[in-house]
């Protein structure tokens, strides 16, 4: 029960998480605490389980063992919990035949939002897709689709953001704009967990780094203390 008491103060609390593929644990007794308003970068090599962890937190995938509290509520108890989560993955989740506006409207309706049109316009403008908004997503480049995904994930103003490699496909300009957006979200008190293969550019704006290796979080420290952990420091240097 002390677990539960502790978890109320945290935004994300993960205890003893296990997920197996082919009987082999990808996540092995993983434990992770993320405080309110933290901006945590999840680092680790390919296949370390970053995507699996984020998918389980977004309740897209089911854990074999362990418990997860989101904002003090046990994950899996209520579908309403998903309202608090914004999620971006490698896949854009868009319907190719629908326009950008129609796709966003569909997602806004699934979240049963109010003032849908204003929110969609705000999202479209902030990602610079105004000119293409009435074109089918099929005609979008990978980078444009990725920008639209970011707008989609933020549409319902979630307070927990789970971003899986959000820089994929973005050009320099769009990447910088994403940096600014992440910074603004962090300043506004949102909790961010972002998986990045090459996290270098984010270290200056993030508050924490969590290192996922062998199915466990082996280091989880504030970015200010990075220099104290030579292993992690070297790892980040090499990854860059």
């Amino acid at each position, binding site marked *: 029960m002390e677990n539960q008491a502790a978890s109320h103060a945290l935004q994300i609390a993960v205890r003893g998480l296990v997920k*197996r*593929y*082919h*009987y082999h644990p990808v996540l092995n007794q993983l434990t992770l605490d993320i405080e309110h308003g933290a901006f945590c970068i999840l680092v680790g090599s390919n296949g370390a389980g970053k995507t699996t962890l984020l998918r389980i937190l977004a309740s897209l995938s089911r854990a*074999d063992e362990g418990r997860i509290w989101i904002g003090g509520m046990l994950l899996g108890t209520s579908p309403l919990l998903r309202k608090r989560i914004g999620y971006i993955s490698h896949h854009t989740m868009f319907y190719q035949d629908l326009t950008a506006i129609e796709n966003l409207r569909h997602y806004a309706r699934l979240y049963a939002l109010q003032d849908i049109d204003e929110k969609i316009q705000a999202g479209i403008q902030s990602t610079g897709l105004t000119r293409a908004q009435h074109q089918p997503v099929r005609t979008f480049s990978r980078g444009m689709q990725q920008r639209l995904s970011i707008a989609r994930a933020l549409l319902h103003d979630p307070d927990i953001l789970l971003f899986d490699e959000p820089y994929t496909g973005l050009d320099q300009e769009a990447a910088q704009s994403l940096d600014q957006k992440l910074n603004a979200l962090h300043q506004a008190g949102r909790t961010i967990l972002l998986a990045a293969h090459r996290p270098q550019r984010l270290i200056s704006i993030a508050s924490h780094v969590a290192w996922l290796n062998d199915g466990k979080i082996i280091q989880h420290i504030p970015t200010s203390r990075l220099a104290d952990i030579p292993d992690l420091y070297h790892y980040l240097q090499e990854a860059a």
Partner: protein
Amino acid sequence: MSKKPTLLLLFDVLSLILIPAALILILFFTPVERVMGPVQKVFYFHVSAAWAGMLGFIFAGVAGAGYLITRRQTWDWLSLSAIEVGLVFGLIAILSGMIWAQPIWNTWWVWDPRLTTTAIMELIYLAYFILRSGLDTPEARARLGAVYAIVSVGTVPLTFFSIRLFRTIHPVVITTGGEGGAFNMSPRMLLAFFISLAVFTLLLADLVWHRYRLAELQTQNKQEA
């Protein structure tokens, strides 16, 4: 793999003794049916095999539910084993039914709805193995296999009801009337019938158990490899 349990050994020995015993009982101590002649004696094993197959499929559905509730792979092994053995018994029921139909109805295959749906049941459970072979992880095989086993067993009553409604030339065995190939069973016939049922049920349990141990062994091999 764990050592062979004594109970399983007992099942093996009992099956080996009881199958010949039931066969002797059927061949020499049951009366010859007065219209159909000796071929009617196939009926005891035919119905028993159909019964065992059905029991296996029902059990597979229950084990599937067990898997979805507990998520322990032992339930998946049970479900898989019961379906495989159930398929074998279903095949026996169909083949022996055809052999019985040949002299009585003068044709190997009749589109009798009950025969047809037994064949359909075989197809349903063959598809179970195709489904499993198309899935990549053992976890997905167990989870989707369990759902499919439960849904399949749920449709069985509907299939049977639809057959009842269809006019059937298949004999309705347990009746007192004598319409369309049905016959009345004497006490000795009944005794042989129920003993056959019991023997085949035991054989089902025995084979499922062996198949289960094979699944366990194969999984351990894969885990180590």
